[in-house]
């Protein structure tokens, strides 16, 4: 029996919710605890190639060896640094379900923190909206939330602002 295909396209709608509780593990826990409790940014150092790895990791991706949790492998970084890349967001993303903007409109900064090496880069946001104010080479410093507001996330730093040196 031949039937005419229906004129409308039917749908089944679904919203998928996947709840996760992700463990930070030892190395990230150390990193975030230092941020929350001491307002300090720490990295670790590969014993073979001596790269300073941020965020700290149990293994050096390059050498494929363990970076042991020993005092000599931890490095405290400054919260000042030099901009390597700045990316302005001209087109903000919208959440498919809530319709609200996602994240912040601030330009994204990649910062080589003092005390690190060429691999030590932290991603964060700029204080001002004008990305052209943060060319590569610009000097910036973290602006921290007050300690009682810190939760152990990188948002414990509000943003990075330009500094004169």
């Amino acid at each position: 029996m031949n039937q005419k295909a229906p004129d409308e396209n039917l749908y089944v709608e679904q919203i998928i919710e996947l709840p996760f509780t992700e463990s930070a593990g030892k190395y990230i826990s150390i990193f975030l605890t230092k941020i929350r409790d001491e307002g300090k940014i720490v990295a670790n150092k590969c014993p073979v190639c001596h790269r300073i790895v941020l965020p700290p990791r149990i293994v050096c991706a390059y050498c494929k060896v363990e970076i042991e949790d020993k005092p000599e492998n931890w490095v405290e970084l400054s919260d000042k640094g030099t901009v390597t890349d700045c990316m302005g967001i001209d087109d903000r993303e919208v959440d498919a379900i809530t319709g609200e903007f996602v994240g912040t409109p601030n330009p994204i900064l990649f910062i080589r923190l003092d005390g690190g090496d060429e691999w030590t880069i932290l991603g964060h946001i700029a204080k001002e909206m004008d990305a052209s104010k943060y060319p590569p080479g610009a000097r910036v410093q973290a602006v921290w939330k007050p300690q009682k507001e810190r939760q152990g996330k990188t948002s414990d730093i509000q943003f990075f602002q330009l500094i004169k040196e």
Partner: protein
Amino acid sequence: MSERIAIVGVGQTYFKSRRPEVSELEMVNEAVMAALENAHLTIKDIDAVVVGNMELFEGDYQVDMWLAGGSGAYLKSGFKVQTGGSTGSSVCCTVFDLAATGEFKTILGIGFEKQDEGSSQASLRSIHEDVFFDVGSSGKSAATAVQSVALDMMHRKSITEEQVAIVRVKQAENAMRNPNAHLRRKLTVEEVMNSPKLAWPLRVFHMCPTSVGACAIIVAPESQVKKISNNPAWVADWTNIHGAIQPFYGSITPSTVSTPLGPMWAWSVEQAANRIYKRNGITNPRKELDVVEVYDMATWAEIEWWERIHLCERNDAHKLVEERATWLDGDIPVNPSGGVTSTNAIGASAMQRVAEVAIQVRGEGSERQVPNVKMGLAVTAGGDMYSAGVLIKKSL
């Protein structure tokens, strides 16, 4: 017993923004039927089916299970692989390995995406938003990845904005000759240069679309090729290389940042090409290759890849534009298919690079056929910094 292998069939659907009139299963089946027809085979002749898809995009866990009825996998061997943007080429490499064992008569590889069914933005946020690193990760990660490469290219004077627009027009011209491509509209340089800014110097018209569609290839070992095909595309070599020195834990955006090795995402493309050249004695790719397909998530990326795969010296991409070398009628046509900039159904895209080179080697490119193709290279890329290189020849 290790055998040489060839692609004996290629099939694709039409690529569009939305295909509300078909289910995923029906859409995949279209590509499978097209590949079977192209190979003059039936599903009975297929022994194994390998599927690639970024399943979180459509919200289908273990999607190869649901698709078993439409992919042809029912009562056959197979499994699912996935490597992000390069998924399609990873499927190809898996199929190539399986075929080379000689254990199977023919193997079908399928790459597809039906992003109109889900929220790809939500899925992408699952990678560029990190639980612990909850700042500095918003925005479209693919666009910012390309942006950093584009800024670098301008800084090195590889290319001008106007030249990028000229290349974009080339991509559109090629796509118009490809009936399966998604964006098929004549563009002018002015239109491209005036299109809205996405993440400067990246503009909307430079960026790939979100496409829906499927691609399939059929591969056979030499002992079977004789029986099946009088027009095989021999796969001379294939490799994958991963660029994972990510400074960050989860967010993909920082991994595209300038590390001392450059953006790792571009680094892996260069490594894949180098390895193929080294293993196959290719010292002058521009002369020795007849056609190339690269994974250009934006026009800027296509141009960067020209340098990275050594079609010209570093910083000299502009010469290839001035000489129109990479045009369809140039001496080293790149992306006769129109590239990813014209069609991007993520699970299929990397496979389409391989498929198009096979199409060209087999002389099935019709309006976009490059003359006298004896050897072609497909190099893919994609989050997360996997790149594949596949070398295909008319005869081994």
